[in-house]
């Protein structure tokens, strides 16, 4: 496994190089100039500007210099739009909110999705099952730029319970709460007699799961109390993924519950909880895990919308504007950053998958 991870990591620079080259070529091919304005500036002034940002050189030289700077100094260059800032600076400012928002959304989505999906599968054809699956199908087909404003309308404008926009996170309690949640989960899973007190995967799994749920719930509670600005955006971003995960989880669980080995487990006299948590969950969650890779991509995409609607100072909002205003450096910087994130998250997902399914062997 270690070797596999190493090899995948070694691939990363290549992936990023392809990505940068492609983006660079595309954005250079784009008509339009970063310094074009609605009032025309004289050729001299424009020439000065282009010289300042190195745009007077041939594209290939620009590219070489860019790569050189990135590799040697980790310097992504100056922003052409924001004259007071460098790309590093802008990314450093935006990455935090985007990651926090994304993390909240993923946690919410996983917590809601797994719970709804599992309950739906265990209580197949129950009212809950039908309701949650209809909601999930609906959630998948409503774009988040609709859910966002509707949530704002209901919770912020009519009910006045939450703020319309902004970003005012409070981190102070989160790590402590996360640990507390995991601890509680550990204790709780001890109580449900999953079986032996010793090492068994069912428990770790149940623990992780419950921990995630608890962490999500506690996070939401904390955020409600401390930084309510995050709630609506996180929920907006989470909903489509929660829906998708719920459907995947339900389908996965249904398939596993119909498997012979679950029957075997039942025939052993294990309780239904144990059967579900220990024997079914691990197999049933696999489709969800393999969906997490695309989901991370989706969260990045979705944050473009959510950040705009809720005026969150994240990186997604920068990107569209950068592309439209031809801020070459900023576009490249964000694409590299997101590429890197995707590579790492996809790798993480693959590792987790391998961890869950012993039949997968990474050579």
């Amino acid at each position, binding site marked *: 496994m270690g070797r596999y991870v190493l090899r995948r990591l070694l*691939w990363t620079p290549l*992936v990023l190089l392809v*990505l940068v080259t492609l983006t660079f070529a595309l954005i250079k*091919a784009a*008509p339009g100039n970063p310094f074009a304005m609605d009032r025309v500036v004289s050729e001299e002034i424009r020439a000065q500007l282009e010289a300042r940002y190195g745009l007077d050189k041939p594209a290939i030289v620009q590219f070489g210099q860019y790569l050189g700077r990135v590799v040697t100094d980790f310097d992504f260059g100056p922003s052409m739009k924001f004259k007071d800032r460098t790309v590093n600076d802008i990314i450093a400012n935006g990455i935090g909110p985007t990651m926090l928002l994304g993390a909240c959304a993923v946690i919410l989505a996983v917590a809601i999705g797994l719970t709804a999906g599992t309950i739906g599968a265990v209580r197949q054809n129950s009212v809950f099952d039908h309701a949650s699956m209809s909601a999930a199908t609906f959630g998948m*087909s409503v774009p988040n*730029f*609709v859910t966002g404003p509707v949530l704002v309308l209901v919770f912020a404008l009519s009910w006045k319970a939450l703020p319309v926009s902004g970003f005012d996170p409070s981190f102070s309690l989160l790590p402590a709460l996360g640990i507390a949640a995991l601890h509680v989960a550990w204790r709780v899973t001890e109580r449900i007699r999953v079986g032996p007190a010793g090492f068994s995967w069912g428990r770790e799994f149940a623990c992780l799961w419950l921990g995630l749920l608890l962490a999500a719930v506690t996070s939401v509670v904390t955020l409600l109390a401390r930084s309510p600005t995050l709630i609506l955006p996180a929920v907006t971003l989470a909903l489509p993924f929660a829906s998708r995960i719920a459907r995947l989880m339900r389908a996965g669980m249904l*398939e596993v519950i119909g498997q012979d080995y679950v029957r075997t487990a039942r025939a052993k006299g294990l309780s239904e909880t144990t059967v579900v948590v220990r024997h079914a969950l691990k197999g049933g969650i696999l489709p969800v895990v393999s969906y997490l890779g695309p989901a991370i991509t989706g969260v990045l995409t979705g944050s473009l919308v959510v950040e705009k609607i809720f005026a969150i100072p994240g990186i997604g909002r920068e990107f569209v504007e950068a592309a439209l205003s031809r801020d070459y450096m900023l576009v490249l910087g964000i694409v590299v950053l997101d*590429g890197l994130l995707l590579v790492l998250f996809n790798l993480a997902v693959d590792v987790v998958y391998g961890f869950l399914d012993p039949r997968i062997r990474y050579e």
Partner: protein
Amino acid sequence: MSADLDPPSDGPWAQAWKRLRRNAMAIAGLVVVSVMALAATFAGTVAPFDPRISESWETSLPPGARHLDLVNEFVVTAGQAPRERDVPPWLHDGLGDGHDHACELDVVAEEVKQLRVTMDGAKVTKIQGDGARTLAKVELGPEDHLRVKDAGTRIEAKALEPGMALPEGVPAKTGRWVLFAEWVRIAPDAKRTVRVAYGYGTVSAVTVAGAAHAGEMRIRAEHVRDLRVDGARKEHVHVLGTDLNGYDVLSRIIFGARISLLVGLVATLVSLSIGVLYGAVSGYAGGRTDVLMMRAVDVLYAMPYIFLVIVLLTVFDRNLIVLFVALGLVQWLTPARVVRGQILSIKRREFVDAAVTLGTTPWRILVRHLIPNTMGVVVVFTTLTIPAVILEESFLSFIGLTVKFGGEPIDSWGALVDSGRNALGVNGERWWMLVFPGAAMSLTLFSMNFLGDGLRDALDPRQKGRG
């Protein structure tokens, strides 16, 4: 009829169809999708209104609002002096007598006078004139008449001020009224058929035959010289209301379906063609080629593809073709992987060996034997990718990257939904502008998802319930 009585000779497709038919949700989905597709194809005939023609005073009408139309045909001829007595009686009466009329109109050049009176119920609330903003008071000269668009009503010269009672002859209905008190010159040599639509007691639209819209040609009552009854009264209903520009929401949805479905379908086909071919070649070639090709896919997987789409769309002229390519280019990866997997398992089957023994070329084997066997997966992917692409497109509309459709920008569902969410009032006013396009989109995506699930179950019963 039960499965075991069916002749065993049924092909896999026939069997799949039988299984599909038992899946009520999938069939419902199929019906919905078909209806949408048909409506989109024949949008021109199905849509009750032209989505690009609006009447400014018909903005934001709620669903079911009646557009009390009397469509009248006029023939405009030049050179005749206006004669008050020729004004047809139905014009005096405000609303018609239940019939359509045609008449001859004379138009004379006159000085344009503009005065706009807004009335609420029986009160004048706002008077505007001559380009300036609200006027507190307008003095009219003794020779001035305030001619209201529903001709025959006339306010004798006197000072108008907000709060004054409505002049006699104007039907006192509640609601905001705008009475235009002006006249406009129409080219004296013009002789054409003019259609006049009536609503709320005033002329609401004047269109010239052949032209799209001549809403601004205001025709004075005395211009009407002759009148022919010409058919029955028409009554239009804006079933789903109108939007901020006065466009009929239903028609906009139907025309929007064209873009959304077309984008979904074509982009999906593009992506699947690339994906299937790529996956098939990779899987069939095997060995080093396979490893290389799949590595390339892995690399592309790491791309933040939506960013590439955005860059592509900003780089090139934003038309449908670019959108197809852009969306297609990013969606082919998963089908490629899946098809490769399929090919890997199929190529070990006997019939492939048989073909090889017969000396068939690899390309032929691929095209004739292998790829057709992956069609089940492809069909399923199609129904599941289309919704994804439609959502993608709507997302692009949201961030302002709308596409052109043959030179004329017609809004896709995504764009409609976006403008709907912008129009939504604080207390949910104008909800129909968001809800109906949103519902159309959700319903279609919903249906496609169900159809896709159903197809997958039908084509591969072992996979039941996945996804």
